[in-house]
């Protein structure tokens, strides 16, 4: 090779290198196979916090009280500022524990004594909104509650600055709605249906939601806060009614994002070999996913930073399809002249087989989960609860006797529940166990005028109406052998209105049909039983009864029967309007259970 030729070859190589590498900063190319990208939800949602500032010397008493309230809002994050607002005695006496009181925004402040005096009393007037209990339950204030008045006594200290000497009536932390929205997030926790079993296998692979309001902690991600609270067990409303795979004394070390997974690192006295692993997976997955944490990501559970099982890790795949919530689509039914018809999407279906499909004088039909048993109240004068199989050879049988019984309600375990108004007792009938009607203890209902009883589709919650102005929600506690109703708490009370019907949408939301006393205004309220969050649905025609079903991806179905025109209507959430489905003579729509 001659010298010039060699030079040419070298030049060509250099040019090729330049062309290949030097021209493009970011080369164009592809497609290439990608590594599994760690997408999915963050483990924390952005939030803002109140920053407490210490009181200024030139502040007037009202400013000091406002500052104190702000410091209360920031107390959980920074407890060092609040004592600066208090006199030393008050700082020693005041206790931040106990329920958190939530009042409406922009409370009113007024001087109760002469401004500028040695001791000044400031009155705070606010609308009570809610209370957050120590178990993180959100208890909405009754709509009938009075304005709240809180008195603050202030004195000047040696520097001439005002300090709070007394805070009215043993008040703990006082937050406004804004403070609450900043610092708390409504959170659904999931526990296993059925009473807690001591290490045994849970009978029902089903989850029950427990709604709490959790305070965001700046030092940990929200997922960790959720898991920490989940380990703490259910709130009072479900105490004794649900179980958890996590024994007491468990703690969470961290919840962190891995490459394609969320790693939950636990610590505590759990027995990896004996634990109900599917229950653990379900509790963690639904508690995180339903709060938009770790969606679409595998969850790996570790124990003390090691794989959960000694030989293997415990992971919940992102596509774990097992259904632990009752979200199955169930057929709708309606009654017309005492006969049960299936209700297809837009047209009346056929009457069901057997006597249930025949016109009768039975009222308030209810269908068991299996769809093969219908229960109804007997006609006036006969009473009792009658049950028939949906089969050509079915026959109406009286299961429960009693002249004044509430409409029957099936539980998902196949038991039939009703309330005997005459004897003021809850009656349960368990055909599978071959036992007749028996009374169920319900200490929370003693002496109350129970007018209806509905067992929720999760098989744990129970809603009752007291008179026609109050709805209470409780739970079925105790083992299968000796169930009882307990944990009753008021869900809603109405003033100048009356409650005409209730229906479970799912285990979390209850629909309440309310009518004003003057019969003019009617409304359907969808109430979250966890925190009383209410959504009002519009009504057009006068409604007589409602029923509802949450059917997974199919969305919520809400059906109602009109009072005057004998129509079955369905509510469309998109259109926010009711549309007519079928005509039914003196009929009611219903879904299995609920």
């Amino acid at each position, binding site marked *: 090779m001659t010298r010039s030729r060699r030079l040419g070859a070298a030049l060509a190589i250099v040019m090729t290198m330049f062309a290949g590498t030097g021209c493009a900063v970011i080369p164009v190319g592809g497609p290439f196979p990608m590594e599994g990208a760690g997408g999915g939800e963050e483990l924390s949602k*952005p939030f803002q916090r109140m920053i407490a500032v210490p009181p200024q010397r030139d502040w007037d008493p009202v400013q000091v009280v406002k500052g104190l309230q702000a410091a209360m809002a920031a107390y959980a994050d920074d407890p060092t500022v609040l004592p600066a607002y208090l006199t030393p005695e008050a700082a020693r006496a005041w206790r931040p524990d106990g329920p958190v009181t939530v009042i409406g925004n922009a409370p009113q402040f007024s001087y109760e004594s002469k401004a500028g005096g040695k001791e000044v009393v400031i009155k705070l007037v606010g609308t009570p909104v809610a209370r957050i209990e120590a178990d993180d339950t959100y208890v909405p204030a009754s709509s009938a509650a009075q304005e709240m008045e809180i008195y603050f006594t202030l004195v000047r200290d040696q520097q001439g600055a005002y300090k709070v000497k007394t805070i009215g009536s043993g008040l703990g932390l006082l937050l406004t709605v804004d403070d609450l929205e900043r610092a708390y997030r409504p959170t659904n926790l999931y526990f296993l249906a059925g009473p807690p079993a001591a290490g045994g296998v849970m009978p029902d692979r089903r989850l029950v939601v427990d709604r709490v309001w959790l305070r965001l902690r700046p030092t940990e991600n929200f997922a960790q806060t959720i898991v920490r609270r989940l380990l703490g067990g259910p709130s009072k409303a479900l105490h004794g009614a649900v179980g958890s795979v996590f024994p007491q004394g468990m703690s969470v070390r961290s919840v962190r994002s891995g490459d394609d997974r969320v790693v939950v690192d636990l610590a505590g006295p759990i027995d990896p070999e004996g634990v109900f692993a599917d229950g653990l997976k379900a509790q963690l997955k639904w508690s995180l996913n339903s709060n938009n944490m770790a969606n679409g990501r595998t969850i790996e559970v570790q124990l003390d930073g090691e794989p959960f099982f000694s030989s293997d890790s415990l992971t919940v795949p992102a596509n774990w399809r097992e259904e632990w919530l009752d979200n199955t689509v169930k057929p709708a039914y309606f009654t017309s002249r005492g006969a049960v018809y299936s209700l297809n999407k837009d047209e009346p279906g056929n009457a069901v087989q057997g006597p249930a499909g025949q016109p009768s004088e039975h009222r308030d039909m209810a269908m068991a989960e299996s769809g093969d048993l219908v229960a109804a109240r007997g006609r006036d004068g006969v009473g009792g609860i009658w049950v028939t199989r949906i089969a050509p050879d079915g026959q109406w049988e009286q299961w429960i006797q009693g002249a004044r019984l509430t409409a029957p309600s099936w539980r998902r375990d196949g038991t039939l529940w009703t309330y005997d108004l005459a004897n003021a007792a809850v009656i349960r009938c368990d055909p599978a166990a071959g036992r007749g009607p028996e009374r169920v203890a319900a200490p929370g209902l003693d002496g109350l005028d129970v007018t209806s009883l509905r067992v929720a589709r999760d098989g744990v919650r129970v809603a009752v109406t007291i008179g026609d102005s109050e709805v209470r929600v409780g739970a079925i506690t105790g083992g299968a052998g000796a169930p009882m109703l307990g944990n009753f708490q008021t869900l809603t009370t109405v003033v100048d209105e009356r409650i005409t019907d209730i229906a479970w949408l799912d285990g979390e939301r209850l629909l309440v049909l309310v009518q004003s006393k003057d019969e003019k205004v009617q409304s359907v309220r969808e109430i979250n039983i966890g925190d009383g969050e209410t959504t009002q649905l519009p009504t057009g025609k006068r409604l007589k009864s409602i029923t509802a079903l949450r059917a997974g991806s199919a969305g919520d179905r809400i059906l109602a029967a009109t009072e005057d025109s004998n129509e079955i209507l369905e509510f469309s959430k998109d259109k926010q309007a009711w549309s007519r489905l079928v005509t039914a003579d003196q009929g009611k729509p219903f879904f299995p259970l609920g």
Partner: protein
Amino acid sequence: MPATRKKRLRRRTLRQILGGVRRRARRAAGTVRRVWRRSLQLQVVTSTLVISVTVVVVLGVFLSDQINKSVIASRQASAASEAFADRVQIADALSQQPDEQAKPSDSGKNVPANPLDGVMDTITGSVEDGSKKRYEVLVLNPAEPGASRASGNVTPKNVPEALRQGMRRQIDKLPYDKPQRQQALIRFTGEAQPRLTLVIGGLVSPDSGGVYQVYHFFPLNEEEQMLSNVRLAIVVVGFGLVLLLAAIAYLVARQVVTPVRLARQAAERLAAGKLDERLKVRGEDDLARLATSFNEMAGNLALKIHQLEELSQVQRQFVSDVSHELRTPLTTVRMAADLLYDSREDFEPMAARSAELMQAQLERFESMLADLLEISRYDAGAATLDLDSVDIRDVVLRAIADSEALAERHSTRFELRLPNDPCMAEIDTRRVERILRNLLFNAIEHGEGRDVVVTVGADRDAVAVAVRDHGIGLKAGEETMVFDRFWRADPSRARTIGGTGLGLAISREDATLHGGWLQAWGQSGEGSQFRLTLPRAAGVALKGSPLSLVPPEIEMRRTWRGHMTPVLLPASGDGAVHDEV
């Protein structure tokens, strides 16, 4: 005292260790220096290494600095604009009238009583469908209750003190709001390690009153991570580049050095007399041309040497032939001259004087002819030694006895410094005697009547005889010339002892034939000294001489004058001395 002794022992040990370490270090340094000085390749590679390291370090620092600047600057710019947008949003929200705020929105959602909450929700992304921002915000208004907010886990304590003070100073200067930024390592609440964070502080003074300090916290850990990756890449690439350059330099240097080394070896062999040594010529480059030139030079050199050798041979042969040829007529002339000399008393005085003169010059002619023959024997390589183990003192005494007559004529006395023990050596007595006679005659001739000192010395390997005179001495540079044939210091001076001009040359050849040295020392006005050193055993190489070439008194005088450099001429065998005329 035992303790002191112990301590001293330990100290000595330590000193010894240090000394040992120092010695080893010095030796290693010496080795390295030697290797360095001898290897051109090492020098080239080392130089390349040093230069490329310097260049790579300078370039790397510059590059890293530029990348740092551009990344940080762009981050700072985007952060500043984001912070500015947020401040504008906050100012807008806070400047709205309270009644505007209080209007319930269509969505039925709770509208915050404090507009700050609304705008903070927007800024931090706390609103529904909001996404998490990369930064955190702190709005601080210590003068109003409940008017401070923060996102994430920042607290007022996280604001660097200098920035906070800068903001406080600005509050007084409103409306000359100028945002400030600071980069600091901040440890946020609940975090174990501090994070590098860019904090931007600005003031918002809405129409509704109050001054809000707005701090934005931008994490710089991603940038830091990226920059540290870049720096690592630069270091790795730089290191690789340096190694690559060193390897290239090694290869290139080897390409050049290998032919040079071959040429050096060839030159060495050429110098050692292998005149047929040649280099291989490959290609046409400079090295090939060097090899060609070297080969031509070697060829020419060999030719010239050969010619010179031939010429020299011819000359020697000529001298030898002439000497031999002259001998025959000279013998006849001698016989006739002897006849005339013997009958000179019968001649006229004039004729008698002529006969004496002729006799004397004939003797000189004969001895000159003898010397010429002797030296031509040496030139022909025909000189041999007749070795005998003798006491050198005896040889010296015999030579002195031979010189007595001449010494008396010059009123010169001998001072003898002989050792008491015999100084035995294997020598050719005839030749050594001839050397000594020559030296003694020269000393008497140039000693100007002063004493001649004859010293004999011996050690394990060698014996030496030094002959010292105190005559006019030698000029600088004459120490070697005295041994040249027919050399004379002052051509105008007449020869008084009838020397042939070949005496010292022959003596040198004699000494060399013994494997010994004949050396001269001289100084103007200080006289001169000749030293003959011979090995005790024939064939053993000399390592030194038992006697000093410079006379001891001269040496001492120099030392006293502070000249601490004794003149020791290299024992090359070339000495100096007087002309023997």
